């Protein structure tokens, strides 16, 4: 039997009368990389928020690493990390204090050396005692990457992680993703077709709260994919 890391069945989410997700079903193998595309308002971020325990689904089942998300979210939280366009960092704490704060909440062993290692990796060691509010957007996002990885999560959710990054920060993020690719499972929401299709093992297009395309990378026919993507994005414009 294949090692399924994320299994989603009949996932629905309503905000009042607005149905944002209308029944999502998919599964992702351990070590897989799912790229999620779609127009604004398609439900991509809502899906990631549900998978990362930030939102409760209206209906449906989500199992992560064999654990029911609704029944027992705490063990799941220890396994997941989220990098989004929001850095989730306190501006009036310095870089070290931010990482330490989250590290303590996640009960990270040997926290100080983990902080050193991550600050080195995101090239912020020399700014470790500077307040985050003094950082540029690219530096803040690099620190956000370190924050998301502080507890060595095995599953990473990336919600448009490249937005606002300067080319150097993009290189650092891509390098990090490369380094940890083998031992992690990824779900990435992106509008960047090239990056998303290059990195993924599976690709999904969400439109109007439904999956309109879902295929393994090797089975993807670029023309068909782009036609469906353009159709869904045009729908957003009209």
């Amino acid at each position, binding site marked *: 039997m294949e090692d399924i890391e994320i299994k989603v069945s009949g996932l629905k989410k309503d905000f009042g009368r607005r149905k944002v997700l209308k029944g999502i079903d998919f599964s992702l193998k351990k070590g897989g990389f799912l790229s999620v595309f779609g127009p604004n308002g398609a439900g991509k971020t809502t899906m990631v928020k549900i998978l*990362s*325990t*930030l*939102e*409760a689904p209206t209906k449906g089942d989500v199992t992560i690493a064999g654990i029911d998300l609704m029944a027992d979210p*705490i*063990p799941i*939280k*220890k396994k*997941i990390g*989220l990098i*989004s366009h*929001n*850095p*989730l*960092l*306190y*501006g*009036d*704490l310095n870089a070290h*204090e931010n990482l330490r*704060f*989250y590290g*303590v*909440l*996640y*009960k990270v062993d040997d926290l100080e050396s983990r902080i050193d290692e991550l600050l080195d990796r995101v090239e912020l060691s020399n700014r470790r005692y500077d307040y*985050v509010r003094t950082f540029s957007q690219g530096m803040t996002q690099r620190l956000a990457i370190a*924050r998301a990885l502080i507890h060595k999560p095995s599953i990473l959710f990336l919600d448009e992680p490249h937005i606002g990054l300067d080319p150097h920060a993009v290189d650092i993020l891509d390098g990090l993703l490369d380094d940890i690719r083998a031992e992690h499972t990824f779900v990435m929401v992106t509008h960047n077709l090239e990056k998303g299709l290059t990195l993924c093992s599976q690709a999904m297009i969400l439109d109007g709260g439904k999956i309109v395309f879902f295929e393994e990378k090797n089975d993807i026919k670029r023309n068909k994919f782009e036609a469906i993507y353009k159709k869904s994005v045009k729908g957003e414009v009209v």
Partner: protein
Amino acid sequence: MTSFSQIWTILKKDLILELRTREMLISMFLFVMLTMVIFNYSFSADRNDLTAFGGGLLWIAFIFTALLGLNRSFAHEKEGGCLDGLLLSPIDRSLIYTSKVLSNFIFLSIIQIITIPIFTIFFIRYNYFPMIVLFILGIFLGNLGIASIGTFVTTLAINTKRRDLLVPILGLPLMMPILWLAVTISGNIMAGPLGPNTLKEVVRAVQILALFDIVYFVASYGLYDFVIGE
């Protein structure tokens, strides 16, 4: 790591942020001092004597000061989406509530530690120092009640556009029993010597106030998981 150390981690972060920015404490302090000066001019411009109704005036000032602070209590979490960072962490959401109650309690207490002596020296003509333990107990329980229900209501309103309006609208009716009991305690102690009947009334008010605090805290603690992040 125990629940206590998780609460301490979040509380310590709130205290550090407030010490660095002083956004909440300075606005609360200025507001409470201004209120007291206005009270003095309104009620006793020539005599500087508010002994008879000092307790009531004090708590009017404190309740609005507390609302000012409560509205700011999640400000750092809203900036940069840090509330999501907290909700992502593998901790019981009720512990977030407990740490926020404690930080709101501490900030209001700091304001009171500074302003009550000033208010007493300038406006109270009766020496209530012999009853100071009972007085402090009343202030402590009043603060705890306001912080307990205030933190819960603030969380309910956190994701709404009009949260500055919602916190007083939802919070004040729920805080009324706390206020009534706190005014009974502080007012009677500040106003003059306590006779046996008044002392009995004050002790009774302390007991009921403690009961309200327990009910408000336990109910909010139990319901917190359903309101935060939704």
